[in-house]
């Protein structure tokens, strides 16, 4: 069959992928600490059907040849690590990172995952855990009789307990930073894993060394901009339609020749 059909098919596939990325962004518009994705496309290899500069006779040359591109493909879906909005919740265990850095979360397999979702809870043993129950690293243990827990800008966690005048220090929350956060691999549950592309984690104290501040009583909302996604969606839908029109046109051409000859 004709190559125009295959070329249009690559265009349809590219737009379909883009739509999947947009749907995922829109589905996660209320997910705490979600970072929106973006599909990156490139043009496929070109075929040289007639070489420019080829000789048409002994003394004459083709001034321009015929190069046929073979369509488009998705090279990457990258995450855009821009800051999301801050939502005030007044919950003592809700922490938002204002700036760079990720919370370090201990996974059941002993590895560390990274997250921007600061909606922590206290488990039965008093440890700070994520909504999925994975503990924060380094571990923070809250006393069972704590009246209030305070998290400072720099990650110092203190609690007031009955019968004590001063606050009790519970520990320090550390953040980890990456040279190339876009290189982190999203694994679901608001978690990211380190890859070769992201570089090694650079742990540090919040608000020092370029890491962000911690803000207690707030959550970082998703950085998806609904208006931008909807515009992208319209654009993708129309681009899909154009490509399918092209399939239709080529189909029409082929049908015409089979019906008429």
């Amino acid at each position, binding site marked *: 069959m004709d190559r125009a059909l295959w070329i249009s098919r690559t*265009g349809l596939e590219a737009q379909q992928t883009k739509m999947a990325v947009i749907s995922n962004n829109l589905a996660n518009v209320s997910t705490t600490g979600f970072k929106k994705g973006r599909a990156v496309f490139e043009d496929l290899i070109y075929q040289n059907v007639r070489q420019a500069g080829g000789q048409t006779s002994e003394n004459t040359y083709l001034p321009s040849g015929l190069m046929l591109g073979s369509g*488009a493909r998705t090279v990457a879906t990258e995450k855009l690590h*821009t800051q999301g909005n801050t939502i005030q919740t007044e919950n003592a265990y809700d922490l938002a990172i204002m700036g760079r850095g990720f919370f370090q979360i201990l996974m059941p397999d002993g590895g560390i995952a990274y997250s921007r979702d600061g909606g922590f809870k206290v488990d039965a043993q008093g440890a700070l855990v994520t909504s999925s129950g994975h503990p924060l690293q380094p571990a923070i243990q809250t006393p069972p009789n704590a009246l209030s827990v305070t998290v400072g800008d720099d990650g110092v966690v203190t609690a007031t307990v009955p019968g004590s005048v001063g606050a009790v220090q519970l520990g320090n929350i550390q953040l980890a930073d990456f040279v190339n956060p876009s290189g982190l691999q999203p694994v679901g549950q608001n978690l990211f894993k380190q890859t070769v592309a992201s570089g090694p984690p*650079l742990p540090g104290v919040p608000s020092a060394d370029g890491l962000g501040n911690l803000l207690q009583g707030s959550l970082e909302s998703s950085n998806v901009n609904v208006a931008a996604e909807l515009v992208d969606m319209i654009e993708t839908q129309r*681009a899909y339609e154009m*490509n399918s029109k092209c399939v239709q046109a080529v189909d029409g*051409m082929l049908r015409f020749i089979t019906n008429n000859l």
Partner: protein
Amino acid sequence: MDRMIYIGMSGAKEAMLAQSVNANNLANISTAGFRADLAQFRSQPLFGPGLPSRAFGMAESPGVDFSPGGFEATGRSLDIAVEGEGWIAVQARDGKEAYTRAGNMRVGPDGVMVTGSGYPVMTDGGALSIPPAESMSVGADGLVTIRPLGQSAAALAQVGRIKLVKPDFRSFVKGDDGLFRAKSGEPLPADGNLRLQSGVIEHSNVNVVDAMVNMITASRNYELHVKSMKAAEENDQASDTILRIS
């Protein structure tokens, strides 16, 4: 068979090639910095026995539409768009310098700044390497400034300047990897007057209305050629009938 049918046949074949060029433009509507290919036909007169009345059509892509694509503000510091007629120098797979308008940059695992397709971005002296940094910004003249890890905002470091060139479009061609090169194959000199914008990405310059019209033109063109093949066939049948002894 009459020779006419071959003219119709080659015309239909070339109309299909033009449709392929157009299909490729449409497939790349969402490719950042893509430049649309143009298709045109040229008559190739054929000399043989009899009068030189036969001329075959030949499709060719005489060049590329160099008009700028739409700019979209993304707010991402590594998305860059070149203003005017500037092009970004990158290193092609063969190690030589080539040029692109795709400004969706990222930093690779080895710290080298690469385009969305993975081509390293060039400075005047080789690929642009970014040391571990807390923040990075690209200036209007292509100068990349970083704040090194653990340093204060007062200790900014310049790591290199993205090479921007201003090509002569008459001798600037698209290669089979989609990157552009000078016809001579020589690297172009950097132009210090070009400006780029950070946080903006340039889209494909495919004009969908043009592409749709071209699509209809190619389809109708094809049908006309098929009609002329049909006419040639009917002529043959007619002469057949005259000669038939009933």
